[in-house]
Structures are given as C-alpha cells and as structure tokens.
C-alpha cells in the first residue's frame, strides 16, 4: 500500500472516511499506549486512557487546523488525558503492574524489576522529554526522524533526548562514558 500521509488521512476522515481514521489509529495506538504506561498508569488505566484520547481526537478532528500537525496534536491530547488519569485518585499506581504479565518465575524478578525501574524513571521525566524517549526506544527512531515526526528542530529534539537519556542513565545506574559502566 502506498504511503499515505497522516495529513491526507485526516482529510479523508474529515470527509467522512471513518476507515481513514482507523488507519491513523493503527499508526499511533501502540505508541500512545507506551507513553501511557510510562506515565504512571497501570496497564488497565493505560488502555482506557489511550482509548479515551483517540476517541477524543476523533470527536475533535474538525478543530485540527493543520492536518500536517496531526501527530503533535494527538500527542498533546494524549498527554493531557494521561496526566488527568494519573492524577485521578482511584486505582493504584501503574508501575505496580509492571511485573504482572507473562514471565516465568525465574526471569520474572529480574526482567520485571528492570521494566518497573525503566517505567518509573521514564514516568519521572517531564512530558517533553518522555515523548522523544518513547519514539527513540519504542519506535527506534533516530534524532532526525523524531524531529521530522514532531515537526521540531533537530537541535531541540537532540537536546531533550540527550538530557532525558542522561537523567535515565543516572536513575537506572548506567554510568556515563567517563565512568565504568553499570546496570540496573
């Protein structure tokens, strides 16, 4: 299938093409979920929040002025939704379930502990750091690709990513190049 830009899909969705929005959804849902679980939400809350954010985006699609900026616009909606959900008093903090799924007893401790630590560390980052970190490590995007995806200057993205990585390495116990290495 030829690459159709997000902006084109937005236009089609606005012209009544629900399937166009579903295509957009397909491009973003996993990434949004990653952002959600790294924003102090449990898996269940993250699922709800991602759904909520995407439904909200669909409802408000006609207010998006520049279809070229759909991604950034959606991230903003999502971040707000996640923050509201995380601030809600109800269920337990999300990092708690990082250990839950699938690992056998032997691996569970180590890998679940590692996941929990990463989620906590990423969740502690400011929003504008968390997004590039997600794009970098979930999507494997380069600095240039992130900049182009977010419509931001490469320098800005690089600065954020670099600072974010420095914070994460500190929190997770990976020493910077002048140190001798480490681990969680």
């Amino acid at each position, binding site marked *: 299938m030829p690459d159709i830009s997000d902006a084109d899909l937005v236009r089609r*969705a*606005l*012209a009544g093409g*629900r399937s166009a929005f579903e295509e957009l959804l397909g491009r973003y849902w996993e990434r949004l979920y990653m952002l959600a679980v790294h924003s102090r939400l449990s898996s269940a809350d993250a699922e709800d929040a*991602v759904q909520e954010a*995407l439904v909200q985006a669909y409802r408000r699609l006609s207010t998006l002025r520049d279809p070229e900026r759909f991604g*950034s616009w959606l991230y903003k909606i999502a971040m707000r939704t996640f923050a509201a959900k995380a601030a809600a008093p109800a269920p337990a903090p999300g990092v708690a379930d990082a250990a839950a799924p699938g690992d056998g007893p032997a691996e569970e401790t180590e890998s679940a502990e590692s996941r929990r630590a990463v989620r906590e560390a990423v969740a502690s980052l400011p929003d504008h750091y968390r997004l590039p970190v997600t794009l*970098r*490590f979930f999507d494997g995007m380069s600095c240039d690709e992130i900049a182009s995806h977010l419509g931001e200057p490469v320098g800005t993205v690089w600065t954020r990513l670099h600072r974010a990585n420095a914070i994460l390495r500190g929190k997770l116990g990976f020493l910077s190049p002048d140190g001798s290495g*480490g681990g969680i």
Partner: protein
Amino acid sequence: MKCESARELIEGLVDGRIDAEAEKSLRAHCERCAECAAALAAAESFVGTMTASFGDARPAPELRQKIVAAIGAERAPRRFRFERSHLWTAGAAAAAVIAAALAFIISSADNMDSRVKTAGDPQKDAVVASAPVGTVLAGELEVRPSGAQGFVRAAAGRELVSGDTVRAGGDLPAEISLSEVITVFIDAGSEIVVAPDPALPYDVRLERGQVFAEVTKGTPFRVLTAGGEVQSLGTRFGVQLLSGVAEFAVVVEEGVVRVDSGGSSERVSAGESVLAAGGRFRREGAEGCGRRLGWVKQHRERRRGRFGQGGGHGAGQSRGRGEGAGHGKGKGEVNRERGREGEGVRDRGEGSGHGKGQGEVNRERGREGEGVRDRGEGAGRGKGQGEVNRERAGEGEGVRDRGQGAGGGKGQGEVNRERGREGENGPEAEPEVKGNGGGGGEGRERGNGGQGRGQGGNGRGGVQTGRGRGRGAGRR
C-alpha cells in the same frame, strides 16, 4: 580517533544521531581502547535495557479492536458549520474558508465510498452546498449560480459556492481561488463550474475554453471534462477543451498529473503535454507544451504588473501580540516566493499586508502562509513571531491561534516561550534579518511585552517583485 571524539560518538549512539560510518569508526577505536570499549558497552547496555523494556510493554492486540469499536460508536467528526451572523465578518471570513476546506477535502478516488455516503445525507448536503468553496481573485469574471438563468458580474472577493458557473467575460484571463489552496486561471471566454458535486470542493468542470491551475502540494484537485478528467496532487497544469466534445489537451508545468480518458489513464509530467480523446493519448513535443503555456505566462506577466501597484503600503504597529495593521514587506516576499499566500491576502481584501515577521514566514515556509490567511484579521505581528516561524513550520499554528483571539492564552504562551529560545539563535545566523524586528514570543519571554513595531512603505518588496512594497521594521 581520539578518546574524546569516541565519547561524543558514544553519546550520539545513545541519542540516535550518528550514522553507520561514524559508528564503524567508533567501534574500530573501541577495539584498541579498553576504556572507551567499557563506556560503549555501558551505553549499549542502557539502550538495550530501554529498548527491551519498551518492547516488553506492548499492548494486547485486542485493544486496537476495542478502540476501533469505540470510534465506530461515535458520530463522524462534525463538518464546519457557518454561523453567518457572527462569522461572516471580514476578519473571520478567511478562517472560515480554511476550516471549510479542511472539512470538505476529499482525497482521491479510493475514498469514493465515503463520498457517496456523504452525498446522500441531506442535512450535510445543505451545509456543504451553502458553504463557499472559492473566491473570485481578479479579472473580469461573471458568475451564474446553480439553477439561475443569466450571468452576473462578480467583483474580486466574491465567494463562490458549489455549482456556480464562472466565466471569464473580458478579453483577458481571470483568476479564482478554491479554498485558498488552489488558484485557477480561467482564460478569456472560458467557463467552468466550481465543485459540481458539493461533497467534492476541489473539483472544477471545464465547460468551455481552457484553464490553468496552481495546486498546493497534497491537495487533491481535479479538472473534469466531457471526455475525461485530470487529477493532480500538487502541481501546476493546464487543461484545454478542443474541437471534439471528448477531446482535450493537458499541459503540465510542474509536478505530475494523471489524465483519465475513455477508461485509460496516462501520467503527464512537467514539461509535457498530451492530447486525450476517447482513451487515446498523443504526446506533443516541447513546442506544444510551450505554446499551451503561452497564455499562462502572459497572464502572469500582466498580473505582476497589476498587483505591483497595490501591495504593501501602510504603516502600522505590529506588536508582539498581534495587534495593529500589517505592512508591505511580507507581502512582497510572499508574492515573490509563494504566490499563493499573496493571493490569500488579496482574497480577504484587507488592503494591507503583513509585518516583516510574516514575510519571513512566508518566504521560508509555505505552511505559515496559511497561518497568515487563517488569521484573517489584518493584524500585524512582531518580528519575534517571524523568527519563530522562519525557523519552524509548526508555529504557523501559533499565529493562527493568536489571530483568532479566543484560541490564544495559555497555549500560545507555551508556544512562544518554547520557540523563543530558538529565536535567540537568530543573531548569529542572520544578523541582518534579526535587526529588523521585535516583539513576539521572544519579547514576551524577556518581559518586553512584545514591543515589536512594523513600519510600511520602505519600498524593498516592490523593487524585488513589483507586487508588494514596504518592509517591516521594528525595535525591541
């Protein structure tokens, strides 16, 4: 490679900003240097941990289905509805046209299902049919509304709605704009119907003579004829009806179009022209192409001369927050580099152009031009914004938000604060440009309150293009 460079490359590896070649050199160095090798191992371990952790957290596939179902239960996004009583002020008109454009854009033939559905909804049709799809830009044009008997003279600025037949009644070509993203030149004596199907605002049907279209990239635009159609996604091309009912010629100046005729299709690229009839295509040589573009070139020449008289005078105070009248410099540059934006300005009939900042915006980035159009209020803006916009595509939104007043506030503040930082790099990059402005987000962040000020009439644009004069100047 020195260890210092190697450490930088290691950081680059983590941040995803080194290429394969640099990585190769880094690894070669690490084979000889134990300390750097350890640092590289630590960095890779970090990247591995992060990647694995993100990879492990993937959601269950059912979630996607659940969201699709939730969206299926929603009403389709509402189309833009016109509240003529308060929206139809001169200021809001352009914003409304853009919003309508967004709401009505249809992308391509494979979206046909949704088009059919849309066309079958009487309530939606009523909204669509009454919404302007275009504007008369210039020239002697006559319009016959759908269902009416005769043509009436249409002045520049008149809105066109779906089904209007438009005829260039004078001796010279005339121009219309469709949703400000497509400019159509209509040759003298030629006739088109704009958006014959209300659900497809970017179509015109060529009834007589010839047209030439300048289409913003990514915009789905079609010229329909009795013998076939020409579809473009951002290009400049012309279509001419020939003697036979089903025969027409297509000439492409820039980009590529697809010509459909009698069940066959043909791609025509820049510098080519073809004759199409009953599914057959005959390519013409370069001479044919030049000949078919002749009237367009003449029209552009005339247009340049004409608009050179009018643009960009007017002194005004463009404060950082977007108050005051706009000025000429931007317009001159707009027209020079980005014809369409200039037309947007004319469409609104504001009478004044825009500040220096916007000039830069438009010169560098097409999309910000839309921002200018969207605002639709003729308010100038300070240099700060110009810098912002010059550097970044996205700030166009900020401009629009501000211009519409209600959308401003906090969101803008954030935008400006954030972008202001980038603006600070300006003096090194382009000191000359920097010196002309003030205000905008940067000013605000520094507590200067956006004191940028614009002055018109310095004549720079006019010299450059003949289409706009004056320049924005300011002080911080």
